[in-house]
């Protein structure tokens, strides 16, 4: 599968980090018998945002010797970032935050693999995040909280969410265990005002997009906080990460930790979901196939999920392609199609009358296609149905789903 992340490779002045060196300052944590640096080295952590909280988180994780960090952020460093983002330097102004953070981490030379993606979590698919052991997010908008929370629950990725209330000197750290589909997500805690704010923060421009997807622009408030409070939030997030992966003390999953600088008190509260939230509570099983996905038919894949023809609400999403149900040709002839095409260029086959390409109407393009609609072709291999080899396929039935991936080595 084509990797959306780019790896940052830097020439560090610290060459060849050895396990002994990485363990040189590792304490013997109470209640933990194993080799903590070894545990960290085996972890892949996703960072949603690289701003005032997560920029220091990225560096702290790198200093821990985490095996890989993937940094996702669409924004650029601004001059004001110097006031709130610990670690950011003047020469990083106007650079993408994800790139700047990746560079800073790579230069530490701890051997942590550092990858970055310039964009939002909304721009990534579930398949892009498979293999992540934990996620830490500190975005400045509710849509990223919403989307990040959903995808982490779908894939069973424990999620640490840091936030601030700077006026009250409060730092909060929520840990979502994502043990199952009933686990709480960030959206479960949205108040009515936050739901309304969520609606208001997302704007789309339809300019120049006659039939393609509109580009979302998420407008969130600037972080108004002293850098010190942002650092405290980052430190709390990494501490909770430590406790999560090493199993230190009481379980931190599905709890919210709050620290208040006015009172110097901390409070721990449980996180719950009352079922009335907007979140798509679901859990996907990830299956890496032994052969290319295109070799399989939908019937083959349904058999692997334990479902046959009988599951009325089964749906399929095939990579970034959509099911073209019907189309029209320039000679005016309507055609039934029945194949997967790329929505940005919805053409499928040739008109038997005029030999021109058949254009699929967006109304008859199904990003998520029902079992009933594909029933006539469910025994045909996907390679015969898809415009290009599918990179992944999500089969869902209610809150359960299976994400099928190509073998590891498939490009």
């Amino acid at each position, binding site marked *: 599968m084509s990797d959306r992340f780019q790896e940052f490779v830097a020439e560090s002045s610290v060459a060849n980090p050895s396990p002994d060196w990485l363990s040189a300052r590792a304490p013997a944590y109470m209640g933990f018998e194993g080799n903590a640096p070894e545990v960290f080295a085996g972890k892949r952590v996703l960072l949603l945002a690289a701003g005032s909280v997560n920029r220091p988180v990225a560096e702290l994780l790198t200093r821990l010797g985490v095996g890989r960090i993937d940094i996702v952020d669409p924004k650029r460093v601004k001059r004001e970032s110097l006031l709130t983002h610990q670690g950011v330097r003047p020469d990083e102004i106007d650079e993408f935050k994800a790139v700047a953070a990746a560079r800073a981490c790579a230069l530490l030379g701890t051997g942590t693999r550092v990858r970055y993606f310039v964009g939002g979590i909304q721009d990534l698919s579930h398949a892009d995040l498979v293999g992540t052991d934990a996620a830490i997010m500190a975005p400045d908008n509710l*849509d990223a909280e*919403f*989307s990040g929370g959903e995808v982490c629950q779908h894939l069973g990725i424990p999620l640490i969410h840091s936030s601030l209330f700077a006026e009250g000197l409060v730092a909060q750290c929520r840990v979502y265990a994502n043990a199952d589909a009933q686990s709480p997500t960030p959206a479960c805690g949205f108040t009515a005002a936050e*739901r309304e704010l*969520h*609606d*208001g923060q*997302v*704007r*789309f*421009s*339809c*300019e120049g*997009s*006659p*039939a393609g*997807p*509109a580009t*979302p622009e998420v407008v969130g408030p600037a972080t108004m906080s002293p850098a010190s409070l942002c650092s405290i939030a980052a430190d709390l997030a990494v501490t909770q990460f430590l406790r999560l992966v090493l199993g230190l003390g009481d379980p931190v999953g599905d709890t919210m930790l709050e620290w208040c600088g006015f009172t110097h008190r901390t409070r721990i509260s449980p996180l719950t979901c009352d079922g009335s939230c*907007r*979140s*798509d509570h679901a859990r996907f099983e990830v299956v890496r196939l032994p052969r290319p996905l295109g070799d399989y038919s939908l019937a083959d894949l349904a058999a692997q999920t334990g479902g046959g023809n009988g599951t*009325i*609400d089964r*749906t399929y999403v095939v990579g970034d392609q959509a099911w073209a149900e019907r*189309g*029209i040709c*320039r000679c*005016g002839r309507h055609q039934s199609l029945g194949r997967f095409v790329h929505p940005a260029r*919805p053409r499928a086959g040739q008109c038997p009358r005029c030999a021109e390409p058949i*254009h*699929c*109407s*967006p*109304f*008859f393009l*199904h*990003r*998520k*296609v*029902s079992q*009933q*609609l594909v029933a006539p072709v469910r025994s045909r291999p996907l390679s015969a149905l898809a415009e290009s080899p599918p990179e992944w396929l999500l089969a869902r039935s*209610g*809150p359960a789903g299976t994400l099928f991936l190509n073998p590891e080595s498939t490009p």
Partner: protein
Amino acid sequence: MSNTPEQANTTWAGGISDLSGVVLDAHFREVHERATRGNAGAPTWSHRKAAELHGALALAQVSGRMRIMLADLTVSLRLMFELRCVVPTMPEPGGELVIEDRALIGLTYPEEAIRAPLPGCAFVMLLRPAAVWLPNVGPPDPSFKGPGPGQPLCLGASIAAGTPVKELILQSYGALTMQSVQLDERDAAGLMNQEAAEWWLRTETPIPLAREGFLEFTPDPTS
């Protein structure tokens, strides 16, 4: 128009703000039941689809303005309907404006619409007539002489989560009749055809194209 507020078995008080009291007649009830048989998905979503479809069918029934051609609840809620209203078209590029009296609309309401805000162009496709000429309708494909794959209609910069289907239909009516219009070519919100926006700014054709409300419709007995 059936199911007036005066009918004994309805709790509908009139108007379009709340159609939940409208009792569907035999025709629309059959449309609803047929669609509901294939209604799939999580209980919350399937119930919502059924309720939204009821709202749309109630709107069709009380207004007489909509003829339902397709109602599908399998995955998303999908409606294809003929809407009787004025529709401005420009069949020949640079030519004369031609006003049609109906549009064939494909409306898709995905599950994401109840969870998160979506772009205003995510819901409505104008399938007929060809060459609809409005600032918030995607430009026609010039390679198609007649109706092509459809033109998207943009209802604004962002549609709030949970906006009812009935509301989307009413907004579509407002957009097609230009009772609500976006003409500022400097504002990308809802603007899909810059050339059309500039044309409408220059034209002497009076706006809106129709002033009648959605329920103020008298069908032509000959059509």
